[in-house]
């Protein structure tokens, strides 16, 4: 179990219609703050039965201010995004030891429709981004 958590009021439950690669049956998630209000991290926690599945995520703008992925038409259609403003981006963090060596997956951001809370993991093909980009320069 993780430590004390606060449910982020803006996104109570997210729905991944096709799960995530590696976890195709994980459809329902809730976003929970990790740590105090100053923490840049949240936990994307699966609500589906029989699983303790969770991912650490962060808003990419916090660590990667130049990251502006283009969401392709397929993802935009699946999530019914009418404009870039409809989308919230999150990136999955692979926690390392020491934690300062942790990385974010910029190749496969999570895209959320703010209004419907439909979500999917997109793929930025030919972008040059990696699944493990250092959060903190070493």
């Amino acid at each position, binding site marked *: *179990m*993780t*430590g004390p958590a606060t449910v982020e009021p803006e996104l109570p439950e997210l729905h991944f*219609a*096709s*799960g*995530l*690669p*590696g*976890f*195709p049956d994980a459809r329902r998630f809730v976003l929970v703050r*990790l*740590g*105090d209000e*100053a*923490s*840049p*991290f949240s*936990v994307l926690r699966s609500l589906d039965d029989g699983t*303790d*599945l*969770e*991912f*650490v995520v962060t808003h990419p703008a*916090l*660590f990667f*201010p130049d990251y502006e992925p283009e969401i392709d038409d*397929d993802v935009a259609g*699946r999530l019914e995004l009418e404009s870039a403003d409809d989308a919230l981006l999150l990136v*999955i*963090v*692979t*926690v390392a*030891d*020491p*934690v*300062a060596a*942790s990385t974010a*997956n910029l*190749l*496969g951001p999570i895209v959320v429709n703010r209004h419907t809370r439909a979500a*999917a*993991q997109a*793929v930025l*093909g030919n972008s040059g981004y990696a*699944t*493990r980009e250092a*959060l*903190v*320069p070493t």
Partner: protein
Amino acid sequence: MLVLTRRANQSIMIGSDVVVTVLEVRGDQVRIGIDAPRSISVHREEVFRELEAANRAAASPASGALEDLAALRPPPKP
């Protein structure tokens, strides 16, 4: 593996909800269109495998690591 031969503008059904269409054949490249419901994701295979491996590596970190991570802050902006 089931192997079928198609020409441009011919299609293949996978189950009753997925339609794969050969759009164009040019040199050593084939443009393929896929119609699938939202419950089924569609990815280039090598990229899917990369995401799958990354997601599995990131899944469910230990609680001790989470506590340490919660204290990490973005570097200050220049």
